């Protein structure tokens, strides 16, 4: 098994304007996702939702600035670290990851043990 990071990139305004019901649905979808990963034979190592980019602070060199590192329409809003057999397996799992206002990016975690 290898580790993959599923980066959830979404338009933050989507949740902000959609109201609490959509947020509730998304939370339920994520709970379901955790079960589906197990069913698919993968494993969630960890996962978290992030506070919006308005709460971000960036540091370049020793200069501290308000805001995210790069301003993009779809920002990193959460992640899962999963275990999967190979890329096909990881993609199979990531396709189930809820991201109603954007999409997900799958990145293999670098193995530094060797």
């Amino acid at each position, binding site marked *: 098994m290898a580790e993959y990071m599923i980066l959830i990139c979404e338009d933050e305004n989507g949740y902000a304007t959609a109201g609490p019901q959509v947020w509730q649905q998304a939370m339920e979808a994520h709970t379901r996702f955790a079960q589906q990963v197990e069913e698919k034979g993968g494993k969630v190592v960890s996962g978290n939702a992030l506070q919006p980019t308005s709460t971000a602070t960036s540091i370049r060199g020793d200069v501290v600035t308000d805001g995210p590192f790069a301003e993009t329409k779809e920002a990193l809003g959460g992640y899962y670290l999963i275990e999967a*057999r*190979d*890329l*096909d397996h*990881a*993609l199979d799992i990531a396709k189930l990851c809820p991201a109603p206002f954007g999409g997900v990016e799958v990145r*293999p975690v*670098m193995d530094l043990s*060797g």
Partner: protein
Amino acid sequence: MNTGRRQDPAAAVADAHRREWAFVLAATARVAGDIDLAEECVQDAYVAALDAWSRQGVPRNPGAWLTTTARRRAIDARRRDRTLRGKLPLLVEPDPPVAGSAPPQPPSGEDDVIPDDRLRLVFTCCHPALAREAQVALTLRLVCGLTTTEIAQAFLVAEPTMAARVTRAKKKISAARIAYRVPGAAELPDRLDAVLTVVHLLYTTGHMAPAGTDVVRADLVERALDLARMLHSLMPDEREVRGLLALLLLTDARRATRADGDGRLLLLAEQDRSRWDRAAIAEGMAMVPGALRGGRPGRFAVQAAIAALHAEAPSYDETDWRQIVQLYDTLLTVWTSPVVALNRAVALAMAEGPAAGLVQIEELEQDGRLADYRYLPAAKADLLRRLGRREEAARDYRTALALAENAAERDFLARRIAEVCGHA
């Protein structure tokens, strides 16, 4: 060619490079566990073959000789350098129970029983996680054994650019763990479509080189045909593979007539049909029914059926254009492409007259998706010319000329402009 007579070893090596490269590399990748190492060992094996075959004669089965040699080298290299395994390994899985397409593997253990891993290699090269241009480059490099220089030349790309593309793709296969395997039944249709698309793209790139002076870049065309034949031999029950091979054979049968003695492009209507390759046509035609039968036909099968109607028509005017229009309608249901719609409009113009086709082309023009597609203004200009609307025709021929890069095409369009302007 193995009749026991003494062969020229250099020619035998060249022949084995062409025929056996994919088999040798695919089988070596499995034991090497690393694509770069496998390639290196296979190249070494070909070099060793030149020497050994000069001294001992060409072996009865050159592919097996090369594979055994390359695999031994790979095993030795791995023993010598155990840290290699820690680098970026190719994810080689034990044989999974695969869709009915792959033949059962013979029991291994014997040195001379080598599993045919060519499908694994092809599906790995054409994995959807790789960009199309990377899929194409990797297929030529790993499955066809072309050098990076040759691939760069074929696609008119600077060599360092192509080298970087190949390296990046190989690295992604290892780092992201793209498995070296044939996809399971559920994924197979989509994954196979990607493979066939790559082979078709190779063919069309060679068939109508996007720029430069040769109308046909013969080598790419041959490679695409080789690949289609290989896929058909490995997956004989896949209808779309059959459809693609039929399409390529039927299209390629016209190769010798696509340009005149001066390299000038000749349209289907102008080609000397007596010089079409009848053997290729017969082979392609025989495959079309099997590609169409058994459920909804795929896009390659339908295109092959269209090519078959052209191939059997005694002349351009006597072509069964109505049936071709119907086949394009079928094609649009499985492949909603504006290019298909444009081809349908051209066929419709033949079946019902240029005015009917022109209406369709004007609709496509409004649609805008073909704004940079040179064949749209060229086709439109042709219909305007046939309707006697010469000034409008000249304008659209000029639009097409501005978009065309191939010298033969440019020359053709320039002649048409002169013709409609009355200078011919």
